[in-house]
């Protein structure tokens, strides 16, 4: 079922299930096993409520499986506590959500620098240089000092992408990043995501848009928390 990958999997879900405890337990993800190769661009599709976001949260260590495990470079990370997972997210993952979640009091530049400042490995000058470089690559240089409320929807989402790239993550996970955008902007953001893989990054994006999903290397279709098809994008 899985596409044979030329390289060893960087990110891997191994018989992962996620059940919400309740009087009638809700199964979000049901025994999913997936492998993601470095430098691949994968889209996850499926009907609303099928569990796409839930799967992405599990892969991004935002959530913990009730059964099975998530592996990074063959190492299980599901047993780690929430602060350890936060530390891994900071250096290894970049997230883009449907809503931009930019800090409203901060400029575009400061929003992009937020994860860098928390990581604290770069000097102030190096952080600024890097943030400017990322913004330039996303054609956001002219908006660097604007507040999020002074940006268009597409610019906000590109800022969110820039923030996701701040700490040069190996994995970029995007949950319907183009949901709030028009076709032109959506295509632009997808092109950007596509471009990220050239640096060896693993990009996984959830989308409803069949046209956009065609640009990916691989398409995983989910229904009711289960993988129903997985293969090269049509």
């Amino acid at each position, binding site marked *: 079922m899985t596409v044979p990958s030329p390289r060893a999997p960087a990110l891997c879900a191994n018989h992962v299930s996620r059940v919400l405890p309740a009087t009638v337990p809700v199964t979000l993800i049901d025994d999913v096993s997936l492998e993601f190769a470095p430098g691949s661009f994968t889209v996850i599709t499926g009907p609303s409520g099928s569990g796409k*976001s839930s799967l992405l*949260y599990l892969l991004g260590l*935002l*959530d913990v499986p009730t059964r099975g495990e998530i592996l990074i470079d063959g190492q299980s990370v599901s047993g780690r506590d*929430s*602060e350890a997972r*936060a*530390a*891994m*997210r*900071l*250096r290894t*993952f970049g*997230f883009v*959500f*449907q*809503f931009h*979640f930019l*800090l*409203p*009091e*901060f400029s575009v530049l*400061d929003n992009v620098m*937020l*994860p860098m*400042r*928390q990581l604290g490995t770069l000097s*102030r000058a190096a952080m600024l240089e890097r943030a400017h470089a990322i913004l330039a690559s996303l054609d956001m240089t002219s908006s660097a000092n604007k507040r999020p409320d002074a940006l268009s929807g597409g610019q906000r989402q590109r800022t969110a992408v820039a*923030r996701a790239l701040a700490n040069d993550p190996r994995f970029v996970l995007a*949950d*319907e990043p183009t*949901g709030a955008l028009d076709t032109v902007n959506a295509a632009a953001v997808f092109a950007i995501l596509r471009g990220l893989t050239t640096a060896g990054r693993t990009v996984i994006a959830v989308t409803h848009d069949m046209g956009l999903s065609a640009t990916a290397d691989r398409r995983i279709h989910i229904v009711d928390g289960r993988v129903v098809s997985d293969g090269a994008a049509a």
Partner: protein
Amino acid sequence: MMPLPLTIALAHLAARKRQTVVSVLGVVLGVGMFISVSGLMAGFQATFRGQLIDSNPHITVTDEIRQPPAQPLAMLHPDAAVHLSRVLPRDPVRGISGAGAIVDALSAMPGVVAAPVLRGQMILRRAGRDFAVSASGIDPAREKQVTTLEKDMVAGTLDALGTRSDGIIIGASLATKMGAVLGDTVAVSTIAGTGVALRIVGLFRTGMEAQDNALAYVSLARQQSLQGRPRVVNEIQVRLADISRSIPVAAMIEGRWGFKAAPWEETFERILEVFVLQNVIIYGSTGSILIVAAFGIFNIISTVVMEKGRDIAIMRAVGIPGHVVVTIFVVEGSVVGVLGLLGGWAAGALIALVLAHIPAPGATDPSQTLKVVQSAFTYGLASGIALLSAVAAAWLPARKAARTDPLAIIRGAA
């Protein structure tokens, strides 16, 4: 570069200036009131205590015997295990025996002066009216060094008691009541049955009406003969250059001569106890203003935490640790606390300055204003309470912020 939590904290506060200013003002008010009101109280207590200590002996030796004197056998063998049982304090003798020698010995010690006194009641009679007074037979030369009597003289001199054996000094208000002036004679009698006519050679005014109405001074020899107790002294008053030595010096006197020696702390114990109660009430009530100010801080931080759910969620999702989120909001509360503190210091100093220009109640001349004592202690205490309550008030909502599940918000916002 500013630490990340401080940057975010300041951004949050800057975005809600009005609310921040109100919270800061709460702390300013609390700290300012705490500093000025407790300063006023400390000023009052210091004035009162100063008057009390200044106009009274620091140690009063009286003819009570509280402990048996050192026994010769024990003195002979100071290092031996000598135990004498059933040694009782002597039967109370009326008067301090060997008072002259004790006064001389005490006055010879550096920083110590002593004066002998014989106290006893007197009836002053003038124009058919009787006035009971508590009279002290004193040695004017020594008395000068030990009490403020000389300073309180408003007419005549203290020395006149030394030169005129029939002299008496009474309070100015008593003289007014008696209708007597300096130089008049009054008929004096005592329970010993002796009666004599004395001339008023001096008037004093302490400012304390009870004393000005009920005290009288005669020479020691005159008092001894009037009371029918020749060569007896029943009190030795001791004044110290350093009042903080009062307790050890009193213990030394009592140990050496056996007579009860009460330091001022013991004599004014009740008053000092009232001061303690007063402190509790003042610090408690002004401190509670600070606690109320802390509710203001709790309020603003809780509001920010509630409004900033999305920001907190993305910070957690991006990988910012929970303790950093806690720090952001605790710093926010602390910034309000510190700003309020600095403002409160200024407000407190200003209120104290204004208070120091208000005439003291009952003051006779307008230069007598309220005394406000500003101490590093009250500033420190106010700061400590303000900071601690600010941090505590911010910490509760901050902890809640760090515990929010980012997924719940991210799911909801999508």
